[in-house]
């Protein structure tokens, strides 16, 4: 029976000893979505990925395409690149790929990818005969991608998938991901590369302190947070309480005002008869949005929220 929901996480809690890594997290993904999980180190991104795969004990409920994590993995419904996954020594790439392909085949996933196709999409041409121990970091990561794709799974979970890839490898990687998304694959990736999330994801989920702190398109996440910044040079003066300003930061003579209403802020500044040398107005980047969502402003000298 087809299900519209690729992933349903309800009240997910994961504890490591006394530490709560994920506390009561909810997340619902529709099939075919490409979702970026963003957040600083220790935010709980990897823990969420691991819990969805049934790799860590958790409470709450996780349904992957309507099944429990363990059942979904056994049925070959999920492909994953783990942050601490790895390849076996003393083996050749082709042997490892074949082993994993066959395991998906036996699980009833028709070989969605003929080997040649898989090799091209994972970008491991010419590597099948290589000993695993002789691979570079980027090559290793592409072989791990091949293993994740081997069964042509409807849901892909990728934890920092491009961290060891060079620029070219990264571009090829995301081309493959877009192709998969077009075929209806649900892709979830945790990343530090905000520009990747901005460019690739239909939906950005920001995780901090083990909870979802923002969820929407990249544009919505940007708009819903720090707004825009007004930057200029001024030796002194206080800028708190100006209309629209939500945060004030100063480094040397440089003043950075974060504002929800650029026009009102500028009018107020100019009405005060102030000169504004080196004036610069910018939209917040996704990076600033995530930073403002997941951390307190650095050296705040004004109102903060």
């Amino acid at each position, binding site marked *: 029976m087809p299900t519209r929901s690729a992933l349903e996480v309800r009240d997910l809690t994961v504890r*490591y000893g006394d530490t709560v890594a994920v506390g009561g997290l909810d997340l619902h993904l529709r099939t075919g979505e490409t979702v970026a999980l963003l957040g600083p180190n220790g935010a709980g991104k990897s823990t969420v990925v*691991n*819990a969805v*795969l*049934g*790799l*860590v*004990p*958790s*409470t*709450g409920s*996780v349904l992957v395409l309507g099944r*429990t*994590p*363990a059942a979904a*993995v*056994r*049925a*070959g419904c*999920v*492909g*994953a690149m*783990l942050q*601490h*996954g*790895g*390849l*076996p*020594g*003393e*083996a050749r790439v082709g*042997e*490892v790929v074949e*082993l*994993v392909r*066959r*395991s*998906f085949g*036996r*699980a009833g*996933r028709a070989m969605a990818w003929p080997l040649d196709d898989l090799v091209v999409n994972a970008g491991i041409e010419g590597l099948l005969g290589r000993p695993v121990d002789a691979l570079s970091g980027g090559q290793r990561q592409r072989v*791990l991608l091949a*293993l*994740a794709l*081997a*069964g042509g799974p409807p849901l892909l979970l990728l934890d920092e998938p491009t961290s060891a890839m060079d620029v070219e490898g990264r571009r090829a990687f995301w081309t493959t991901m877009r192709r998969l998304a077009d075929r209806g694959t649900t892709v979830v990736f945790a990343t530090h590369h905000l520009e990747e999330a901005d460019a690739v994801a239909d939906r950005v989920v920001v995780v901090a302190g083990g909870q979802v702190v923002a969820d929407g398109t990249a544009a919505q996440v940007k708009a819903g947070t720090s707004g825009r910044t007004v930057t200029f040079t001024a030796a002194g003066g206080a800028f708190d309480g100006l209309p629209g300003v939500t945060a004030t930061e100063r480094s040397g003579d440089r003043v950075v005002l974060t504002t929800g209403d650029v026009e009102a802020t500028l009018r107020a500044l100019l009405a005060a008869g102030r000169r504004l040398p080196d004036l610069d107005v910018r939209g917040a980047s996704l990076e600033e949005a995530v930073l403002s969502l997941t951390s307190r402003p650095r050296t705040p000298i004004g109102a903060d929220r």
Partner: protein
Amino acid sequence: MSTLLAFQLRRVGRNRQFLFFTVLLPALFTVFFTEVFGAQAGTGSAYQEYATGSMVAMMAYGGMGAALGATIRISFDRASGWLRQLRVTPVPASSVVAVDVLVGVLLVLPGLVVVALVGRFVNGVQLALPTWVALVAVLWLGSGAFVALGLLIGHALEEKAAGAAIGVVGTVLAALGGLWVPVELFPGGLRVLAHVLPSYWYAELGRDVVALGAPAPGTVLAVAAFAVAAAVLTAAVVRRRPSPAVAGRAG
């Protein structure tokens, strides 16, 4: 499971060190010890006795080394993240464990057979055919104790310590268990120590077969007790290890 088994056997087979220490070295020792010490024993029954004893000890040495070497390597697969990777494929965790055990059991056989052949055809050890068969079979079964011990070490130790343990544990158990120098030549204290080591009882299985045609119940009990203890401890270590690479469960 057969695909995974073939895959794992191929990996270990590629390791020349493993083949050297578990097949070639015991075979060379068998010839060497018998040439040097057996010759001093003179001829006839004294030589036969020495040659047979040395061959049995080397079969035990090779069997133990292979069982430990094949299973302690699990630590490397945990460290590399491969075990964790396997857990997100449809390969069932039970198959992974079963294959680990099978690989250990199967890799014991080459060393046993090669040393027996060297004993028979190079050193001229004379045994009845049923005794040869029983000797290999009993030492093969008995190696289960070291498969269990290797699994315990492989799961309990981190990569570097496990790498060292492959050589150290085998060497210590061989030396103190009387596989290189017969226990009868040990001073009193060491002789007592030998009797609490699984390596001594493992070789005793073979000596029993040569002397009595079958292992004595006490010897079987001793080896079985080591096997069960190691297996129980392994299960406890796997259950307690927080790392999901080994024992993670879904909640």
